């Protein structure tokens, strides 16, 4: 018995040793001396539509508001919105949150070119967008030196990008309703807020006008939500909403959704 075990050990060890030596030589050959030709081919698409149509798929695009920055629970308005919708319907809701903190409109344009993102948007029943906050406020730069000409320039650029975003979305998905969450003025209780308020209102107005040109596309205002007692609804950074603020936005969006 002992002898057998030893013999078996020999056989296995010698075989595996040879195998590893061959493998090692081959690896060296493959990694260092093989022809550097690109032989990566795109595999055939075999994406199947969502398994069952009972489920509702929500795809959320945008910036930190979509991510939920400032919310202690980390859910953001999307999270609370889904919770409310789940109470309302029996359907299973699947959420895909593609928001990235700090995104500006041109980055969203680029994101929409990605294959994976496109696939998800094709299957979406509902598309939610928050974008533009970083275009306008430029992480606080705009408020530091208020200048209407500058804001006009930013807005033109943003509207161009937004137009492209909506067109791209509609190419991918003709049926899904798009909800676009508008901007609020986080600086409304500062001394010279009038100018900023005007800029934000103008920004929102132009945005909703652009969205009006597309069917099934809804502009959701949030300006009024943060108009009074803005500090009750803002996170300590005085820019992002806090949990309460996010819940307000979620309530508003959820009241608009009909399947």
């Amino acid at each position: 018995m002992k002898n057998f075990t030893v013999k078996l050990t020999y056989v296995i060890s010698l075989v595996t040793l040879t195998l590893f030596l061959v493998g090692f030589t081959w690896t060296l050959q493959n990694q260092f001396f093989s022809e550097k030709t690109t032989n990566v081919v795109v595999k055939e698409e075999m994406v199947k539509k969502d398994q069952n149509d009972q489920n509702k798929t929500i795809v959320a695009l945008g910036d930190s508001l979509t991510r939920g920055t400032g919310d202690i629970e980390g859910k953001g308005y999307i999270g609370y919105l889904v919770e409310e919708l789940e109470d309302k319907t029996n359907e299973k809701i699947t959420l895909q949150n593609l928001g990235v903190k700090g995104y500006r409109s041109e980055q969203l344009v680029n994101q929409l070119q990605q294959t994976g993102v496109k696939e998800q948007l094709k299957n979406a029943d509902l598309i939610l967008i928050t974008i533009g906050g970083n275009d306008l406020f430029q992480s606080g730069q705009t408020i530091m030196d208020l200048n209407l000409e500058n804001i006009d320039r930013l807005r033109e650029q943003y509207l161009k990008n937004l137009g492209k975003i909506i067109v791209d979305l509609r190419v991918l998905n003709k049926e899904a309703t798009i909800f676009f969450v508008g901007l609020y003025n986080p600086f409304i209780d500062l001394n010279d807020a009038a100018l900023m308020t005007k800029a934000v209102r103008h920004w929102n107005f132009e945005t909703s006008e652009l969205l009006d040109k597309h069917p099934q596309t809804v502009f959701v205002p949030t300006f009024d939500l943060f108009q009074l007692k803005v500090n009750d609804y803002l996170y300590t950074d005085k820019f992002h909403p806090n949990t309460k603020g996010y819940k307000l936005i979620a309530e508003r969006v959820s009241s608009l959704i009909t399947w």
Partner: protein
Amino acid sequence: MINLVHNEMLKIVRRKKLVYVALIIAVLVSLFTYAQFKEIERRIERVGSIDWRTTLQQQIIDTQNRLTSSGISEEWKGQLSLRIQQQQYYLDHNVNPMEPGAPTFTRTFAENSITLFLPLMVMVIAADLVSSERSAGTIKLLLTRPVKRWKILLSKYVALILSVSIIIFMYGFLSYMISGIVFGYQGWSAPILTGFTSEAGELITSSAQMIPQWQYLFMEFSLVWFVAVIVGTITFMLSVLIRSTPVGMGVMLAALISGAILSNMVSSWETAKYFFMINLDLTAYLAGNAPPIEGMTLGFSLVVLTISGLVAILISFIVFIKQDVY
């Protein structure tokens, strides 16, 4: 010579060392299989989809969000952005990097254990090869035989290489068999991308190639084997140099663990790349992950490891032949 090797193998087999190593591996594989199973369950619940594209896309988004947070270092940022680019490449080419199945599990498990767990298993065999003969006093019996000293040491070394090969084989075999119970045994021919390189934080895909998973596994395990042989050789040297087996093991363990820790923080200390323990993660090159220090390549690491191994052998033989035994 063959008799001498046979003698050494007998010692290893009789002490059931290989059996213990197999048991440890089996227990660990079971644990990780279960953990992975739970993880997948949770992911399905969270993302609500079993489609890997959705999961991968979500991972990309999550990483992008981590990139924007201010608290992370530049090096880490570079690695993250490299990972995003690679995942995007997988997505663009419609290749699932984590095709479910036992081969994929075996692959990732080997990637994760090449720097610490497998070297540890090799140490179980190598650490007392010479020093135990010393502490038990049997070395005198061995050396009084009419055989040259270098032959005795060589026979021990050959036995070590044979055992290392068995360990690596057992490792692959056990993780395949055990994880297959849960994940299924399929997936040998799933495509895997390899040959990525990076330059200044940009992923270079010009030399990327798509190979079936079995080829990738073959390459990966031969690299794992190479690392195991080098670690075994260095442990072997310590076993010659240091009388006490626990101390020898302690030294080697300290080296390995410091390597694992240093890899995470030395990116600014460039000369650290000449340490053998920084260079153990050979499979990372195959997968195209960013190396711990900019400028390290597979070739570089192989050279460092080979030199470390050769030096270790040289020292072992010189010391063993010259030293007084009493």
